[in-house]
């Protein structure tokens, strides 16, 4: 370690120190809720946000720990998104855990550690630090899923996630082992060169296959999605929101880094494999989401569908190798689309789960479609924001979700134009047809909110007031969803669609 390394640690330090502080302050035998703890957690995420703000725009990149971690634009964007998600999760949890009587310090510690793991994943440039990040994130999330330990479904969620997740980690490790055998190195950057070597190629192909399986598992892409609905449904609602968004952010950032190496050589058939995975994932997610009766479970399946849309961009991602072997993906619309889509998904999803966590009753009840009936008129604001979140997830223009989809499908068309291969454009068309299917279940939310009469026991429904934390998250997500949907930067304040787009572009300039 050198002093230079500490600089790249700065964004990571926030959640880490906050977690330690909470352990020191909150570690006592009497287990009453302590209002200081969530504040500490927020301070940790705030540190990262401020750190990202200070470091941006980053000139070049800083490698640390002998190439284990890399603080570059992509790392900063991941840190930004994850800490936004983590902060939102923390704010939601305050009210949520209070109502569930489980407001314990360990919760915040685990949220901070899982966020830390996600950031490490997004910054890692070799297999070891990637595994470190992945496991830190996963272990914390396994526990968080089962945090409501008196509820069967929460425990079920935890155990399912743990068992299947460990299996995925095993796949991951095995893939790494094979890649190490093939390349003789733990660095991502040695992957591309070694692929040209005919002798190590079989090992690398199989290794990448296993590795990819591990990644796809984490993002919930079909056919490795089976665990996802049960886990998401049983987990505490704020955690579900955080899992759906944060894990995707971290995993996709890492995948972008790995694929940026692999895609240097066009002869690999990886694109074809991903093509089918994207298609199957979209179909499975959307069709299964149609049949759900619980909104939370619907959102779980729709998260699979969104993973599918994101995979489209992975299929068509294409970058440039610059001088000194530097990899520059800032010209790749697809890579930018992934980051923007993740941002859009983050705000809309945290908002939607925010509303759900407010509506949820003891034992995870109160989340069926019928429970939303007529709510749009009883709680005007809640109805409005939930509609906007649903429309954003469905990809209706004017919302961030549309810009994300626009970019993803645009990148697919972009890749298809000028080549004789029409499969990319076909994928865009199939993706769009899928989002038409998806529209139906998002519209059902709107229909319940507005077109159905209020249920009989409406007077007793829900807590009287939205807690401050939940309210803050919902309002912020609402503004973000619209702002990144059509916001124009007329005053040059750095908000709106265009600055975000530029940020994503800049983030991809220094992948290697």
């Amino acid at each position, binding site marked *: *370690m*050198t002093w230079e390394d500490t600089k790249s640690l700065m964004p990571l330090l926030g959640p880490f120190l906050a977690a330690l502080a909470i*352990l*020191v302050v909150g570690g*006592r*035998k009497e287990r009453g809720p302590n209002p200081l703890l969530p504040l500490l957690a927020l301070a940790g995420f705030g540190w990262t946000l401020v750190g990202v703000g200070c470091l941006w725009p980053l000139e070049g990149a800083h490698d640390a720990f002998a190439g284990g971690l890399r603080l570059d634009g992509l790392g900063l964007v991941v840190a930004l998104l994850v800490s936004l998600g983590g902060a939102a999760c923390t704010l939601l949890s305050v009210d949520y855990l209070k109502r569930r009587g489980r407001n314990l310090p360990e919760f915040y510690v685990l949220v901070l550690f899982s966020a830390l793991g996600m950031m490490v994943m997004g910054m890692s440039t070799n297999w070891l630090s990637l595994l470190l990040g992945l496991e830190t994130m996963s272990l914390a999330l396994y526990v968080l899923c089962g945090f409501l330990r008196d509820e069967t479904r929460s425990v079920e969620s935890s155990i399912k996630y743990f068992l299947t997740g460990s299996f995925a980690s095993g796949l991951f490790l095995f893939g790494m082992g094979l890649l190490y*055998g093939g390349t003789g190195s733990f660095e991502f950057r040695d992957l591309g060169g070694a692929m040209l070597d005919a*002798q190590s190629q079989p090992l690398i192909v199989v290794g990448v296959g296993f590795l990819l399986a591990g990644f796809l598992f984490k993002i919930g892409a079909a056919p490795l999605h089976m665990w996802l609905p049960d886990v998401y449904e049983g987990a505490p609602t704020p955690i579900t929101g955080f899992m759906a968004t944060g894990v995707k952010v971290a995993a996709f950032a890492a995948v972008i880094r790995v694929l940026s190496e692999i895609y240097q050589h066009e002869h690999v058939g990886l694109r074809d494999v991903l093509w089918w995975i994207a298609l199957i994932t979209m179909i499975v997610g959307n069709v299964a989401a149609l049949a759900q009766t619980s909104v939370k479970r619907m959102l779980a399946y729709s998260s699979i569908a969104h993973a599918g849309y994101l995979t489209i961009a992975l299929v068509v991602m294409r970058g440039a190798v610059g001088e000194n072997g530097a990899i520059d993906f800032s010209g790749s619309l697809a890579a930018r689309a992934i980051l923007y889509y993740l941002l859009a998904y983050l705000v809309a999803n945290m908002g939607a789960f925010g509303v759900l966590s407010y509506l949820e009753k003891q034992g995870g009840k109160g989340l069926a479609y019928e429970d939303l009936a007529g709510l749009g008129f009883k709680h005007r604001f809640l109805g409005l924001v939930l509609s906007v979140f649903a429309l954003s997830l469905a990809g209706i223009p004017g919302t961030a979700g549309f810009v994300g989809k626009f970019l993803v499908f645009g990148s697919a068309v972009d890749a298809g134009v000028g080549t004789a291969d029409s499969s990319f454009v076909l994928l865009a068309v199939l993706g769009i047809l899928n989002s038409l299917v998806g529209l139906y279940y998002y519209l059902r939310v709107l229909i319940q909110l507005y077109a159905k009469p209020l249920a009989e026991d409406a007077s007793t429904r829900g807590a009287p007031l939205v807690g401050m934390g939940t309210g803050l998250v919902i309002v912020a997500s609402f503004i973000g969803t619209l702002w990144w949907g059509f916001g124009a930067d007329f005053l040059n304040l750095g908000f709106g669609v265009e600055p975000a787009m530029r940020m994503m572009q800049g983030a991809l300039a220094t992948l290697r």
Partner: protein
Amino acid sequence: MEPSVLVSLLIVLGLAAAIPVVMVILGRAFGPKRPTEVKYSVYECGLEPPVDARRRFTVKFYEVAVLFVVFDVEVAFLFPWALLFKKSSGFLFFGEMIVFLGILGVGLFYVIKRGALEWE
């Protein structure tokens, strides 16, 4: 990797799997079998067991065991560190271990405060 190396690796694997299997089969086939009552009893000496061996222990045993493993394994990092200390750049190298031990210390502090080490 050379394919020939892989082949030899495969041969070793095959042998390693085959030898115990063959030995067990040989023992079954040629070993003398004279079962008696005593041979089938639970213990060849002592008393009949009064309760089932698979009882539930208090979780505290596990807690202590896990904590022991956690803090014990960390010591493994101290040895290489100590060996390299002379060649190191000095302060930063020292600081790293202090930070590491500090983190462990926070963990220990938390464990104690939570009362995980109190038996009753």
